[in-house]
């Protein structure tokens, strides 16, 4: 089973133990998931520590070293302005991963809450939100973001506004379908018997249980968002120069593809590496080898 399939599945029956029990499960991760997590940790660290570990400045020009092939002094070679591609990639990773986290996790929280409420109560709110979710999911994501960018102008702002507009929808669908099963569970019924408020029932008792599949799905969502982000940056609609994004470095390298293949190729491999890491982690987590209260 994989993250891709998560959405198609019947929601699994959920155990009644609290969210805290999840902590002991970290040692039960499969090898796959651990490799994936390792890749992600390295890439996130590289991004966070970019100013400390980058050998050159992100826009440090050196016209005596134009289009130099990868070597010990320039791990990923240099571009048409003699800038060190490795350093630029590190800074780009810092910016891109920062944006990816910002456009993945806040919508996750919103989506899970909307889905939880829709699934718990059903009725008219459920029907309306389901229609909106369907429309959002079907709409060409790239075109919608580009329309938002057309409104607010090129740059990170358009992405920070545009992606969350759509991003919550899948989580809402996931959480809703799980809530339909969850609300019939004995411990959920017990909260009614105990006289808890609906708010407490949903937030304290249901949502922690709904989070798991959303968190697993979020690994795939991060990949989708990074691909989207680099695509937009490639089109010149992302962060504006002099800020580098992985996509814009690749775009810079396109004109010299044959003479200096490394400029376009190597930053792309970093995107692929991130994708593999996140997908391995997601696949590993959804294999059910994670010990703990959740299936």
């Amino acid at each position, binding site marked *: 089973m*994989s993250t*891709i*399939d998560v959405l*198609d599945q019947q929601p699994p029956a959920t155990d009644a133990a609290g969210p805290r029990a999840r902590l002991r499960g970290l040692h039960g991760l499969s090898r796959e998931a651990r490799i994936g997590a390792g890749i992600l940790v390295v890439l996130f660290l590289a991004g966070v520590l970019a100013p400390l570990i980058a050998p050159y400045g992100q826009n440090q020009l050196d016209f005596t070293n134009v289009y130099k092939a990868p070597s010990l002094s320039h791990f990923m070679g240099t571009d048409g302005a003699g800038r060190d591609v490795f350093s630029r990639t590190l800074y780009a990773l810092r910016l891109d991963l920062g944006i990816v986290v910002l456009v993945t996790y806040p919508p996750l929280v919103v989506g899970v809450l909307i889905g939880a409420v829709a699934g718990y109560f059903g009725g008219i709110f459920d029907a309306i939100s389901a*229609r909106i979710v*369907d*429309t959002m999911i*079907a*709409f*060409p*994501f*790239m*075109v*919608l973001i*580009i*329309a938002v*960018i*057309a*409104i*607010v102008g*090129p740059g990170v702002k358009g992405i920070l506004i545009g992606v969350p507009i759509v991003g919550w929808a899948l989580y809402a669908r996931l959480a809703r379908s799980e809530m339909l099963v969850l609300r019939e569970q004995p411990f959920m019924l017990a909260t009614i018997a105990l006289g808890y408020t609906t708010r407490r029932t949903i937030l304290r008792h249901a949502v922690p249980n709904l989070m798991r599949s959303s968190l697993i799905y979020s690994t*795939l969502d991060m*990949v989708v968002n990074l*691909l*989207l982000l*680099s*695509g937009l940056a*490639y*089109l*010149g*609609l992302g962060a504006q120069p002099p800020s580098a994004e992985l*996509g814009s470095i*690749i775009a810079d390298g*396109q004109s010299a*593809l*044959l003479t200096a*293949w490394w400029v*376009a*190729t190597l930053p*792309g491999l970093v*995107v*692929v590496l*991130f*994708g*593999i890491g*996140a*997908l*391995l982690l997601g*696949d590993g987590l959804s294999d059910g080898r994670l010990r703990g209260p959740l299936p």
Partner: protein
Amino acid sequence: MLNYLLRRVALAAVVLFGLLVATFFIIHLVPGDPVRIVLAGRATPATIARVHHQLALDRPLWTQFSLYVSHTMRGNFGTSFTLDSPVAQIIGQRLGPSAALIGYGMLLSLLIGVPLAIVAALRPNSWLDNVVRLGTTLTFALPGFWLGLMLALVFGLKLRWLPVSGYSPGVVGILRTLTLPALALGLALAGVVVRTLRSSLLEVLQSEHIEATRSRGFSELRVVGKHAMRNSAMNTLTILSVNIGFLIGGTVVLEQVFQIPGLGSLLVGAVEKRDYQLVQALTLLAGAAVVLASLATDVVQALLDPRVKLDGR
């Protein structure tokens, strides 16, 4: 049956109306005065007022919306600010390459995906199945535009088999100019096709009628390839239709990579030049394409598959 179809069409109409509302506001959400932004420094107050009037921006919002809806219904998408000709005409000229790219990409995803899914489903959890699974995982991690560049580097620039940019119509022209971008587009979708079809095939293979086919002594390849595929074909069709939005997004970027004069490059150019009318029309068109594709799939499914329960839905 008729009841189901009518409800399905009504639902599509509601979503299309929602799309109209959403795209209508594109031009109104632009901070400041869109006309001033487009005309920049080269406009006198009189010109600005004239363009305002031309776009009906000086009328009440409600009037503007009903004008927008009635114009759109008649296929009148207004006049492009920057290209100075009717939007509908511009789109008509650019539609061909994009449609060809999407169709070709879908075809390649099936040509690659279906055999791999059958192979994987024949021997689940074998080394072959694992290789296919790894391969599909990889396709999800590949940025389409970067894959396109790599294909252009290897097959275009190094091996010189195919051109790396441009577009020419006709079957031969499409095969020559669109094979690389369609491959870049189709590979990601092939991953989705393999995953869905494989799990669908495995499920069908558990069923009794497959048991019956097996007991008649047909080869496993024939059981899977013919009898199980018939049941899974509709799933594959649905997957393609669900992913049409993804394909449209992919063409936007790939058209830029391969310099194809289609709707995607038109959209990117329109954003750069702040041609709001064009952006509005293209967004509406992309959304409508998705809605209509999913409607068409549901209708075809209802007509062809006797198992679809029509009244219950």
